[in-house]
Every structure is written in structure tokens, then in C-alpha cells.
């Protein structure tokens, strides 16, 4: 437990922004410790906020109105690896990539691979229902979590789901995954392990026009191919990434698609040919194939480090996260460009194209308050358009404190009231992670900014 102000200070931020210094930070090592903390907090009537690695991008781990931060950094044991049954049981503080590395020698991995996978924890993935580039073919966190152990607000410990499919009863596991720490404290997670594919091929398709790249995306899915990953980066982001990682991305192109197909060797061979054909038919200037594991890693390193790389070209930037149906990509990108032009903002695009999950990056200088205001307006416009196109305001970053006030864009008062009532079943008094997910009625625009400079 940390009480000293100079230590607590370090828990006022996460990957999104900083908010408020917590009253205390606790470091449980076991479920029993967590139970004790919850009971203590309840006695003292202070909220409890769960924290994994603090890499989240929607403010899920920051404190809104004081309380105890429960850091799971020391609950990082892999409790069981059960290869014959393709399952593992882990504590929430286990780092995402560490689990995959632990089972890699026996040919398995844990599918969700958010860009922060080297640091983020599986507990955090469960809270946010994290995605990643490779969830296109295999699903997001919720598709890979089978059971949970959860500490409730009165210190009760429940187990939901388990190693096998469908235990009779409601799928509370599925409901808790993605609830952003507002329903309870998850203290143990049973996940599914997936065999690594036999063959993987990675392609880089290079385009002179953004439109050709976006059309390719729809054509690939329509062509009956589900790549393991299908990522797009536009010229602005490409140049920043290249400066940072020297991945060999072409500097003069308008957009590239990073496409990965995996599976049985024979299927992969055929799909690579088919994908390459589709790319060329949609005016790809060049299609490169990674010839070795090193080349493949290099191409991915660029993608995975993209957000950070953008920090090099703009003092601040705001990463948005919206989803639209894939076929609307061409129109949506034109719309984003128009929004940028209207407000005089530079907007880069890098996203999980295969899922229609956009990440527009709005660049600005936080020291210029007019520009900051414009960024917020532009971001809201983009979100509103996502909603209009039948999409969502967040595909993987979560709602947190960033978008809770935008929820009415896609949900009716009845929908939100139902969510609130369900939340109250677990969390009657706003005890767990207050002020997140559901609208609070207070609109605080400046809080929703990803600060790419300073702290």
C-alpha cells in the first residue's frame, strides 16, 4: 500500500491523460488481499479503481473522484498452463505478450495482440475487451476468455464460466469482459490458447491513391478471403513511422496496406496469390512480400510503434477510435480528409482496415488553445459520422472517461438505463471505477485529449 504523496502522484495518469491523485495505491498479491482492500474501501466509503499497466487510451485506470487504486502489477503469476485442453489460468497482472511467450515453445499463443502487448496486462485486456491487428480472423478478448474470478463490492468472490464451454446459467463472463472495471475486480482469468498457424505470409501493398487502398480492403473480404490481419496506413503516418523504425516503408506513397494471411501452407499460398491479384487490380503500385521472419517483424514493428512514432512529427496528437462497416471506408476517409481541411488540421490515418476500425490521429499543439478546441470539434464530427454510418464510437480503446458523454450518439436513453441498472446489480453505489462508461451528464471536453507532449 502506498500512502506517501510523492508516490501516489505517479498514479494520476494512464495512457490517455492525467486526472487526479488517488488517496492510496494498493498492490495485492492474492485474491484474499483484494478482498481485504475492497472491504477496507467499503468501510471508508471510498471508490476502488483497478489498474493493470496503465496503458489504456480511454482513461479507464485514472481516478475521477479520489479513491484507492488497486494495481495488479504484483499479481502476475501464470497459475496454470494446460496445453492438452488449450487453456491457461492467469492472474490479471500477467503481461499479454508474456503469456504468448510462455506457451510459444509448445506451439501456442494468446490471440488478442493490442499494440501495447509488450506492456499491457491480461486483466486490462479483459476490462477493455482489447483487440489488436490479429483479431480480424480470430476475434477479440471476449472470444478468448472462458472464465473469471471476480471480487464483488461486498468482498464476495464469485467464479463465472470455467475451462469448458457453456456452464448452465447466464454468460456473466461475457458480460464482465469489456465492462472497464465497473462491475468488480477480476482476480483470475481462464483463457483459451490457440495453436500457432503452420504458415504466415505478410504482404505490403503500396498505393498512389488512398481510395484504391480502401477499395482493396472491401474487395479482399468480398473475395472470400479473411486475412489474419489487414492494416492500412496513410502517407502522413507512413513517413513518421519510417523515420522512427526504418521498416522500409515507401516514403512517397499515399497509402499502404499491410496484409497477413496464415493457416495451412497450401491455403496460404493460394490466398497470397489471390490477395496480390486483388491489390494489383485495384492499382497497387507495388506489392512486396516479406521473405523472412526478420522482414516480417520489421514490417510489423513499424505498425506496432505507429502511435509513438507520430509523436515525432507533432507536439501533441489525439488518437481517435471509431468503427464503420468496411464497405464505407472509402467514403469515410474522404470525410475525415474534408474535416481536416475544414478545420485546418493535419489528420493521419492508421487503422485495422479489415475490421473497419479507424484510428484517425489529429495533430495539434496543446499550447495553442484555439487549435485544441478545433481538434475536439473535428473528433466529435468524425465520431458522429461513424455513428451515422451504423458504426461505433469505439472499437477497442473503450469508453472510459473519454467517450462516456458520447454514448447517446449510438444508444437511446432506454439502452443506457438498462446498462445502468445492470451495472447496479454488481456495483450499487458507484463503488468500482466511478464516472466511467456511462454518461455522467458533465461534459468536460479538455479531458478527452490524448496529450502527445508534456505529461
Amino acid at each position, binding site marked *: 500500500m502506498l500512502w506517501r504523496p*510523492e508516490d501516489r502522484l505517479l498514479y494520476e495518469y494512464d495512457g490517455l491523460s492525467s486526472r*487526479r491523485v488517488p488517496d492510496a495505491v494498493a498492490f495485492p498479491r492474492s485474491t484474499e488481499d483484494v478482498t481485504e482492500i475492497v472491504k477496507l474501501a467499503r468501510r471508508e466509503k471510498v471508490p476502488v479503481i483497478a489498474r493493470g499497466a496503465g496503458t489504456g487510451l480511454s482513461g479507464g485506470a485514472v481516478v475521477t473522484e479520489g479513491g484507492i487504486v488497486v494495481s495488479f*502489477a504484483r499479481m502476475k503469476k501464470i497459475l496454470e498452463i494446460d496445453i492438452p485442453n488449450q487453456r491457461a489460468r492467469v492472474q490479471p497482472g500477467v503481461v499479454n505478450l508474456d503469456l504468448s511467450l510462455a506457451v510459444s515453445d509448445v506451439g501456442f499463443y494468446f490471440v488478442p495482440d493490442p499494440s*501495447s502487448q509488450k506492456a499491457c496486462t491480461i486483466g486490462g485486456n479483459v476490462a477493455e475487451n482489447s483487440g489488436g491487428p490479429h483479431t480480424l480472423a480470430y476475434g477479440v478478448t471476449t472470444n478468448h476468455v472462458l472464465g473469471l474470478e471476480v471480487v464483488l463490492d461486498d468482498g464476495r468472490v464469485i467464479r463465472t464460466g470455467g475451462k469448458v464451454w457453456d456452464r448452465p446459467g447466464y454468460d456473466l463472463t461475457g458480460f464482465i469482459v469489456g465492462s472497464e472495471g465497473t462491475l468488480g475486480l477480476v482476480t483470475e482469468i481462464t483463457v483459451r490458447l490457440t495453436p500457432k498457424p503452420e504458415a504466415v505470409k505478410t504482404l505490403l501493398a503500396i498505393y498512389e491513391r488512398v481510395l484504391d487502398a480502401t477499395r482493396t480492403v472491401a474487395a479482399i473480404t468480398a473475395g472470400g478471403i479473411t486475412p489474419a490481419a489487414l492494416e492500412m496506413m496513410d502517407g502522413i503516418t507512413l513517413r513518421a513511422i519510417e523515420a522512427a523504425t526504418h521498416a522500409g516503408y515507401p516514403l512517397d506513397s499515399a497509402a499502404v496496406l499491410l496484409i497477413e494471411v496464415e493457416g495451412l501452407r497450401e491455403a496460404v499460398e493460394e490466398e497470397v496469390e489471390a490477395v496480390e491479384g486483388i491489390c494489383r487490380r485495384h492499382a497497387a503500385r507495388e506489392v512486396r512480400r516479406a521473405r523472412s521472419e526478420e522482414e516480417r517483424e520489421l514490417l510489423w514493428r513499424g505498425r506496432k510503434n505507429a502511435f*509513438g512514432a507520430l509523436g515525432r512529427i507533432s507536439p501533441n496528437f489525439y488518437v481517435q477510435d471509431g468503427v464503420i462497416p468496411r464497405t464505407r471506408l472509402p467514403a469515410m476517409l474522404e470525410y475525415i480528409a474534408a474535416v481536416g481541411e475544414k478545420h485546418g488540421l493535419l489528420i493521419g490515418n492508421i487503422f485495422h482496415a479489415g475490421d473497419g476500425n479507424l484510428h484517425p490521429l489529429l495533430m495539434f499543439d496543446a499550447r495553442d488553445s484555439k487549435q485544441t478546441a478545433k481538434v475536439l470539434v473535428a473528433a466529435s464530427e468524425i465520431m458522429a459520422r461513424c455513428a451515422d454510418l451504423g458504426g461505433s464510437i469505439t472499437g477497442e480503446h473503450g469508453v472510459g472517461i473519454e467517450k462516456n458523454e458520447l454514448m447517446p450518439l449510438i444508444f437511446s436513453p432506454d439502452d443506457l438505463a438498462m446498462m445502468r441498472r445492470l451495472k447496479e446489480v454488481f456495483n450499487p453505489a458507484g463503488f468500482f471505477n466511478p464516472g466511467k462508461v456511462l454518461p455522467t451528464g458533465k461534459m468536460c471536453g479538455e479531458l478527452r485529449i490524448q496529450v*502527445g*507532449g508534456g505529461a
Partner: protein
Amino acid sequence: MQMEGEGRAVPAASGYGPGEKPEWDYYSKCIHCGLCLNACPTYRELGVEMDSPRGRIYQMIQVEQGRLALGESFVRHMDLCLDCRACETACPSGVEYGRLIEAARGQIATHFRRPMLGRALRSLFFRQILPHRKRLIFAGQLLRVYQRSGIERLAWPIARIILPRLGNVARLAPRMEKPFFTERLGVTMEPVGPRKYRVALFAGCIASLAFARANEATARVLAMNGCEVVIPASQGCCGALHVHAGLRDEARQLARRNLEAFPPGDFDAVITNAAGCGSVLKEYPQLFEREGTEYLERALLFTARVRDVTEFLAGIEWNRDFASITVRATYQDPCHLGHAQRIRSAPRRLLRSVPGLELVELKDAEVCCGSAGIYNVSENDMAERLLESKMRRVDETGAELLLSANPGCLLQLRAGVAQSSNPRRRVSHVVELLDEAYRRARG
């Protein structure tokens, strides 16, 4: 820095004093994304933000903004940093963490009063011994006599009773290797075969005493690759330990001496076999940035020529007349080679070219072994924890030979092996292995 929410004080006066300090240009690149966390050995061990790279940078900013004092808490967390710079490898934003922590330590060294004993020892080591070759040799001879006399076995148990905090520091004392390499200073070695390059060898201070054989091996390996090897007599300590400890002025003095000892233009390359030295040699310009003196220009020219020995060899068509050495080996990346200089494939490529040698990858090879300059002495507990994890990983490889490319790391790894399940496992520098392969080939 954006001020948000409640609980934020109005910007107060900076907690830093005069002199170099962490600068906005560098710390503002940090977007606290957290990707560095799991790369940081101290965060992996302790799991608290204060001992993570992101958290340390945040603390530096808080001191600048007057929200945090340049006091014990701050110093504790800055001290615990290994300066291994694994976070730089992990950082997508290109934050130069080494520069920041070194500046922060500069502030601590000048403006924070440490307890008496620590201060005296630091002063003795950094100011009175390291910079002076003769004193260093004298100290080395004393240590050697002591190591050979058997007093060691007697003295340490007693010392540890009196000073339990000394922990296992004793076994980290470098073995003195007579004859010291200092005797070779001023010598020039002829190449084997036609001369292709003229290079200068940076001998290092402690390394000249404790790694005299590795230095000789380096010179021979270079000679085998067509190098005329000059060992300038006036060279001295590189100043890396001073930089890490925040002793910027002392480091600058040492740097000036070396910049004069290795006149630019005289050599195709300045070669070092010590990753820690190499990385600071390559960063000499940082020491002169603020002054912008003639030394900055010299430093830039000098830096352009500095090469780690593995980097140099892998960059030329290296001589592959190796004898076969049948051994299962593994390689630990020195932090200041892998993270600070980004040299990872060169040593591996060289090793793979030795026939018979089976190189197995070490899991977490990029994680610090706990050596980190004098860290294993100053922060012995943490260093021991890191070393234990490292040895577990080494055991997993089943390698009989553990290789690395930095004297400091080799000392730490030898101490680890001595305590491990397989104390007979050999620990060598990569060049020593290459040297052996050349020598066996030549009979």
C-alpha cells in the same frame, strides 16, 4: 504539459538548481503510453510506477514544475535506475531516456547532499582513483596481492559480519590479471598479412587491469583482420561511470583527455571491446552541447569513428579462418550494446561464423543482468534479483559457454555462474572466443 483536473498546483518554481537538467525538448516526447514498463528491469521486479521509465520521467517533470522536491524519494528512484536503456528500445516515441536520467543524476550529484559515508566512498572512487592511471594500477596491485594471499577468504566473512549490507559485493571484485594491459599503452601492433585498416584501441581503465587478456585478444583479432592496431599512451578512463553517476564535470575532463589522445583523422576507427565505454564515447557530444566549445566539434568527429569491436568486424569482410570449436553457447546482450548502441546482430553473426559453435538464444537476453556499471555494488539487492533471474534463463539454454561483450557484464555473469547450478560454465567475451578460434586454426 497540460494541466488538467483538480489537485494540480499552480506551476511553482522549479526544484532543479543551476546546471544541466532534464530538458523539455526531451521529456516532452514522452506520451506516458507505458510501453516501456515491462522492458524496465526494476519495474518488472517491483511493479511500481515510481521505478518505471515512464514514472521516472514523470517525476523529473514534477520536480521541474515544483510539485516534487529534489529530495530523498526522488533520489531513491533515480538511484535505482540501472541506466540500461532498455526503455529506449521499447519506446515508440524515441524518448532519449539515457540523456534524461543522466541529467537528473547530474542535478542530484550537485544539489543533493547524500549521507557522509556514501559521499566519501563515491568521491574516493570517482574522483581519486578512476581518473588517475597510477593510482588505479596501485589499487589493482593491492587488490591482486590481497586476492592471491588468501586473506580474502579470511577477511570477507568477518567483513560481512561487521557490515552485513555489503551483501555479496565481495565476489564482484574483479580478478586482477597480471600483466596489466597498461603495459601495452603506446604500443603499435602490426597486422597479420597486408594492412587494410589503421585502428586505435581504446583500452579502458579497470578493463586494462581486470580484462588485460580480453584486451590482448581484441588486439590480436583486429590484427588477424588486417588492422594495424595503435594503443595511444595518453588515453584514460572513458567517464561512463561518471556520466551514469551524474558527475558531469568530471566526465567532461576525462572526455577532453581522450579527445586529445585520439586525434581525429589519424585512425579509420577507434575500437572498444567494452559496450559501456563505447556507448559513452559515442555520446561525448552530449557533454559539450551546452558549452558549444571546440570540443563539441572534436567530439562529433571522434564519435563518428568509434566502433564496438563486434560492430567493426561485422561491418568488414571478416576473416573466417577459424578452427572449429564444438560448444553449445549462448549470448547475453550488454545493455549498452543492445539498447544504447542498437548492436544486436553483429555479435551473433560473428559467433555463428565459428564452425562447431551452436548458438542458442537466451530468453530475455535483452534484459539487464544487474551489472550496470557500479550498480551491482551500489544497489546490490536489486542487482542480485536480476542476476538470479538471468541465471535461471541461462540454465534453460543448457549452454556450456556464456558469452557477452562488455567487461562489467562479464564480471556480474561470472559471479552468477559461480553461485549457479553449473559453476563450471565458462563466461567469455565474444572476442576472446574469436581469438581462440583464430589461434587454434594457426596451431
